């Protein structure tokens, strides 16, 4: 539980941070809230020689609205998300999810940027970001580009970020008031990662489901966008047959690890149960 040696930097601008990362190369890592990075450093599963703390960059923290899009700075903490009026109004599924992440102490420090950039399928935000079709703005020494959340996750701890790039903000289209939503998470205790979790966003019109998106957390090497499952709902009246079909389609794409949370079979089934419960709750919230 004692990390290896490292040097610490605290740049005051994103440009400065990426310049440092470019200069220091593979052995440098950005540090956000530290609640994923520091534990792996303490167990020496990671031993970066340089830590570039993004905490001193004021521009990276905060929530604003640009037209129909909510822009969240990468260094915005889970606590910020839980208390932001803008988020509560336009993206209420985010605080519902944040509240299920870790515990209050961790949420004071843990950031949205760190959560989505970490690349751990146990993180809750990535599947939600895929479900909400978020776009990540990333900055590297070579300039800025955007990456869709749905194209970001390539493997466990393996994302579309290039070495030296940082996520600067997350852009998400505001949800309409009529949208139904829910995040259901099964966990053993406060501070536990999901046994399985499901994010559901759906719209209903004239008794029929007109659109749906489903994300699944911690049931494969990456967060999952359950496209077939969502397709099974669209056009249906969200009846038992459609929901059974969606659940089966979601279960079909999972590939969870066997760990202390349970066997792969159990965790797959729990993805199904969480999805079923999330759909049920989303339905009660959807208008139209």
């Amino acid at each position, binding site marked *: 539980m004692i990390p290896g040696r490292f040097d610490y930097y605290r740049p005051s601008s994103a440009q400065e941070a990426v310049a440092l990362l470019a200069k220091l190369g593979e052995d440098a890592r950005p540090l956000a809230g530290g609640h994923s990075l520091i534990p792996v450093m303490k167990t020496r599963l990671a031993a970066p020689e340089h830590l570039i703390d993004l905490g001193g960059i004021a521009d990276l923290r905060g929530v604003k609205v640009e037209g129909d899009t909510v822009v969240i700075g990468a260094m915005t903490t889970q606590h910020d998300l839980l208390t932001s009026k803008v988020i509560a109004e336009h993206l209420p599924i985010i605080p519902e999810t944040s509240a299920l992440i870790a515990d209050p102490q961790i949420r004071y420090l843990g950031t949205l940027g760190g959560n989505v950039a970490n690349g751990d399928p146990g993180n809750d935000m990535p599947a939600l970001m895929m479900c909400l079709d978020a776009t990540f703005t990333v900055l590297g020494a070579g300039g800025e580009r955007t990456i869709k959340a749905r194209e970001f996750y390539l493997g466990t701890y393996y994302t579309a970020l290039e070495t030296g790039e940082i996520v600067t903000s997350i852009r998400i289209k505001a949800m309409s008031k009529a949208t139904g939503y829910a995040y259901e998470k099964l966990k053993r205790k406060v501070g536990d990662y999901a046994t399985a979790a499901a994010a559901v966003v759906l719209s209903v019109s004239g008794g029929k489901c007109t659109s749906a998106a489903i994300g699944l957390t911690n049931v494969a090497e990456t967060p999952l966008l359950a496209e077939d499952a969502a397709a099974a709902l669209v056009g249906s009246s969200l009846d038992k047959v459609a929901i059974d079909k969606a659940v089966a389609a979601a279960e079909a794409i999972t590939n969870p690890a066997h*760990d*202390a949370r349970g066997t792969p079979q159990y965790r797959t089934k729990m993805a199904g149960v969480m999805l079923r419960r999330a759909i049920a709750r989303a339905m009660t919230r959807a208008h139209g």
Partner: protein
Amino acid sequence: MNDMTPTREERAEKLQGMGCRRKRVEDIRFTQGKGQYVDDIKLPGMLFGDFVRSPYAHARIKHIDKSKALAMKGVIAVLTAEDLKPVKLDWMPTLAGDVQMVLADGKVLFQNQEVAFVIAEDRYIASDACELVEVEYEALEVLVDPFKALAPNAPELREDLRGKTEGAHGKRIHHNHIFNWQVGDKAATDAAISNGEVTIKEMISYHRTHPCPLETCQALASMDKIKGELTLWGTFQAPHVVRTVASLLSGIPEAKIHVIAPDIGGGFGNKVGVYPGYVCAIVGSIVLGKPVKWVEDRMENLTATSFARDYHMTTEISATKEGKVTGLKVHILADHGAFDACADPSKWPAGFANIVTGSYDFPVAHLEVDGVYTNKAPGGVAYRCSFRVTEAAYCIERAMDILAQKLGMDPADLRMKNFIQPQQFPYQSALGWEYDSGDYPTALKKGMETINYRALREEQKAKQEAFKRGETREIMGIGVSFFTEIVGAGPSRNCDILGVGMFDSAEIRVHPTGSIIARMGTKSQGQAHETTYAQIIATELGIEADKIMIEEGNTDTAPYGLGTYGSRSTPVAGAATAMAARKIRAKAQMIAAHLLEVSDYDVEWDIDRFRVKGLPEKFKTMTEIAWAAYNNVPEGMEPGLEAVNYYDPPNMTYPFGAYICVMDIDVDTGVAKTRRFYALDDCGTRINPMVIEGQVHGGCTEGFAIAMGQEIRYDEMGNCVTGSLMDFFLPTAVETPHWETDFTVTPSPHHPIGAKGVGESPNVGSVPAFSNAVNDAFAFLNAGHIQMPHDAWRTWEVAERLGLHD
């Protein structure tokens, strides 16, 4: 007397003596972060030690190269078994009569076993240098499953024991066999079982888990080479025994070893034994002449020091058709890991597992225990329990439920029918114990009435019907547990640790102004000794508890005692405290009579004073007497007012309790919600009800964790897969159920104040209540016995097996 004169009640209340809900005095420093733990102690020039540990569960060590580590700046020394051989500390004795490697000697026997000890100028350097020690291993076949340990072709783990057919506890029948231990009448029991009208047989496992105190194990050794004195601070539940062992192993006279256990952040049995880290810190300091500190991290604590349980109990009960039990037969397969490092009284290889007849009047019984080695961490400590009592209580309480189901009887009724009756005490059990006192029917009846047991059974029946009709996906379980513990080890005629009788002690000194310092041979790890011992003295001597200081843990100042575990502090040191106080009161009586100019027999005790019989206005308070003890004692009497007592208890004490758990299980997720948990404890005389309730809350929380998912689990390669708090279930306040506490009072007839000890009862009693609740929920579906732990996925698998998801 005037209006200002306090009444007797007011005088008694002011003392904050026995029965008072006195606030825990130690919490003033604990809640302000001002406790003083081992890791808070910093000495000039202090060095740090850290371990190189084995990644393998079973491997031969081909070669260790420490040159790179030694070359690192700030590294002072790297110890291996070869370095410990000249001082004969490469192996050390365990409390269970086995020997244990201090550092791996030729091979490793469990994952994370200590291989080398790096000593460096600071913690970070020590940790970095550990990575530079190069160890070449040759992997060997791994033995994880205790049921395969005695197979003819099982790999041989303990080559050091090759050819040894006699162990510390009799014959060894196989290279992985440690001992066989039997109690009771085998022939009569076999006859009862084969003639039983109704019989049950079930293998009931109590899985491996870990005490996991928040503060891990740690030590700081400081050898003064000039004086030839060793000071050792450590997380020791039994500091005096540690000093004796340290003296025997090092050859340093006991008087020149100063063992100090400062504040301890929880022990639960984890801090009774002696670990390689302590030995290496001592050796390091002796060799280098500098203080050496060793602090274990969480993963080391979970994977290397002292697991608990891992008992596999094949249990048979015979009974009449009407449900009267006629015999009990239990065979236990005990998995001790790589070394038998059980912390039991020396003559008891399976602790007091022969309390397995529980609260029931079994005419005959037989218990047999076989201990085996596996490639897992060594131990078998008593995790908040008195030496395997937890395992025994779980075994009988689960088995009684299984029997009730077979008989078609209500489990509470079956218990009621078989209880040892109040008039049978003192009761001789079929397995050799003399139960001191109890009133079981009253306790269970009170519990059932309080929780409205019959109505809950009605509700359960209705819910089962609704479940069968598909109206709900929830099933309801009611878990009954009626435990009897055996604590307060113990009488020196049958209890010793490495030859030292298990008495305990108290030394009380009354100062001229009437304040008191008292020291005991025990050591609190959070049990509030500073609060409760003072309450005993307050009542016995009529001095306010707030004027009484309690001190423990310093072997230079405290009288010798065997320490705190096995709920022994109140039964043994608490008794010594009362006895020492009574010696002081006897002397005080003579001083009072002298001051009042009457004969000793003409004065009588009255709360906080001696008064002249028949003349209540003529009295001397204890404070006045204390002053006189230093300047005006009767002719020929020694001045001063102090006493010591070494108390060798005549018997153990037998606390008991009725616990009832009401649970709702979601069959789709396997998630179990505890709706109510009722805990009635009878621990005899209650010294501080609030402290008792706190102990019950804590112990029930541990029991909840153990029953519902806390485990130390290994994969087939012997890798520990639950070695961090991410996987090892330690519940938070959010998951923890609400505890409803209650009590009856049946004093111990042989204890000076009638107290029995309560610290461990809730862990012992709650585990079967939780497990029985889960089993009870599924009983109407004929699920059969469901093994612990009952975490959600395993419970879901039961539902899956029963076809509840189709």
